């Protein structure tokens, strides 16, 4: 059963369209990650679900109830803010208890819930501290605790890890996922970090300029990106794009750089000579003595692997990044090949995937 449904959400700020037509349905217990570059409207979407912002059109339905016009507090939703937004003058206990007190829960019930959440988050010994006496990671957990004690129908996360240092981020990421699974609360998680998006989500929604570019499982988004934007956004280093034209009645793509790539997964529709964009991930490019020459600009050794930045000789001097296991071979010029089983075919004009 759908826990959260967004129907035809749009949001305009004056003449600017921030969100255009968002339709979404979350199953109970599902974690959906909304990912996109800054300014794509992902935070606005989250704030509309939270009730902090009203949509221009469309409805938000939570557990079968239309909550579009309800106050945030009446929606049974809890939110973890990017800067945690802890009340600076209250102790950790009071920070978590505040919302419950307003709801008029009994003192025993509040103490019970807060202690349980504190136990779960390893905050037990900090309950009497003020937020300023805590580290960034601890504050983050208090913010989580404040959401958990509410026992809401829906969790909202607004880039909760972006203020943590790299090591802590990795650890907290795993913690959030474990916690969310364990509590089984439906969650909406906003981030601009593609690693968070890949690891946390049951499904991903990639937003691009307020439009849903793709909604699918993380692996599907990675393996079959819906358009060149998604293809370039998910995966690091980003996918390489090469200009090409449709050839052999749609059976192959002729790279402007020379090679003819056979579309092994089937014929593409379109006229002979239609402009295409061929995408290939850096790790899929091979060194091949028979291949096309690549002029090397820069070599970045990462230990177990090496990134090579270079340009194709001709035409257009398309720049490429390739990822090689081990060390890069010596030489100013490498010859490379593009294995047909790893290429993605996009329409050059619309950027959409061609299958």
């Amino acid at each position: 059963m759908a826990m959260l449904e967004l129907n035809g959400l749009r949001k305009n700020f004056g003449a600017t369209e921030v969100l255009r037509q968002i339709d979404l349905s979350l199953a109970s217990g599902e974690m959906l990650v909304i990912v996109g570059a800054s300014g794509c409207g992902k935070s606005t979407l989250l704030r509309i679900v939270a009730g902090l912002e009203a949509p221009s059109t469309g409805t938000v339905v939570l557990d079968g109830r239309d909550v579009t016009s309800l106050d945030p507090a009446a929606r049974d939703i809890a939110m973890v803010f990017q800067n945690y937004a802890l009340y600076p003058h209250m102790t950790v206990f009071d920070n978590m208890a505040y919302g419950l007190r307003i709801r008029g829960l009994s003192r025993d019930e509040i103490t019970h819930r807060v202690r349980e959440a504190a136990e779960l988050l390893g905050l037990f010994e900090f309950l009497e501290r003020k937020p300023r006496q805590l580290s960034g990671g601890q504050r983050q957990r208090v913010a989580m605790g404040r959401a958990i004690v509410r026992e809401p129908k829906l969790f909202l996360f607004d880039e909760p890890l972006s203020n943590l240092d790299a090591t802590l981020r990795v650890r907290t990421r795993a913690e959030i996922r474990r916690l969310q699974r364990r509590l089984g609360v439906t969650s909406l998680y906003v981030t601009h970090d593609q690693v968070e998006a890949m690891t946390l989500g049951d499904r991903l929604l990639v937003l691009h300029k307020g439009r849903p570019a793709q909604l699918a499982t993380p692996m599907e988004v990675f393996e079959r990106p819906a358009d060149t934007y998604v293809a370039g956004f998910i995966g690091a280093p980003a996918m390489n794009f090469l200009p090409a034209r449709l050839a052999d009645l749609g059976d192959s793509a002729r790279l402007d750089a020379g090679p003819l790539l056979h579309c092994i997964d089937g014929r593409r529709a379109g006229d002979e000579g239609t402009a295409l964009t061929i995408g290939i991930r850096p790790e899929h490019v091979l060194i091949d003595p028979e291949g096309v020459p690549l002029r090397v600009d820069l070599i970045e050794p990462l230990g177990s692997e090496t990134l090579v930045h270079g340009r194709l000789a001709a035409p257009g001097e398309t720049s490429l990044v390739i990822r090689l296991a081990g060390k890069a071979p010596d030489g100013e010029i490498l010859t490379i090949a593009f294995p047909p089983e790893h290429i993605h075919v996009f329409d050059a004009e619309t950027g959409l995937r061609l299958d």
Partner: protein
Amino acid sequence: MNARRDPVAHAVLLLGVILFVAPLWLVLVASTQDPATIARGDLSLLPGNEGFSAYARVLNGPVPHMLLISLGMALAIAFGKIIISVLSAFAIAFFRFPGRRVAFWLIFITLMLPVEVRIIPTYSVMSDLGLINTFTGLWLPLIASATATLLFRQVFVAIPDELVEAARMDGAGPLRFLWDIVLPVSGANIAALFVILFIYGWNQYLWPLLVATNPRLDTIVIGIVKMIAVETDTDWSAVMATAVLALLPPVVVVVLMQRWFVAGLTEGEK
């Protein structure tokens, strides 16, 4: 640069200290002198031989009552100003309502009108309300404060949006939000402003002089002036002793509140 070895800085500081301390010292010294000595004009720079007898004299007179009136007035003005300006700043900072900008600018414009400019209409209003020669009349017209409203607006605007939103998600209504979040978070600013407003109230002269002719409502400031106004033989050591007494409450407020708002400043992480 090593500040310890900067003679110019030291000299300037020393000059400043002398400028501030010298008059206080003179008042203290004079309060321990024999009134006749002061009247002759040969005021010594060392304490006289009267000790604290002048203090005993004035404390048995009307001075304690005057101190009480001043204290009541200063507290009423300070609290009144804080309550009114916190409420109006809260409205201006957190709510979108029609006429919000107009209200803001009206408050802003009144900043430019000191008490003296509107003193005649104010007097007439107080007279219509029958508040002339009452204690309420002393403080009531002085509790609206554009300056404090603007200061609080700045403080409130600086409260992070996320904190406001977190409180909304937690279900706090406007008044609850004001009481539970805004006021504690702005504690340091309120304390600082309280000190300034208390001293402002304590030092009021013109308005109490106009509105209260009953000697029972004399503030300490007015009391001192009246003591000097006895033309022939002013009891100068009593005047000085009263002046010292009049100094004490503001000093106490500053000292007490200083500790309070330093604590507030270090705790209040926004």
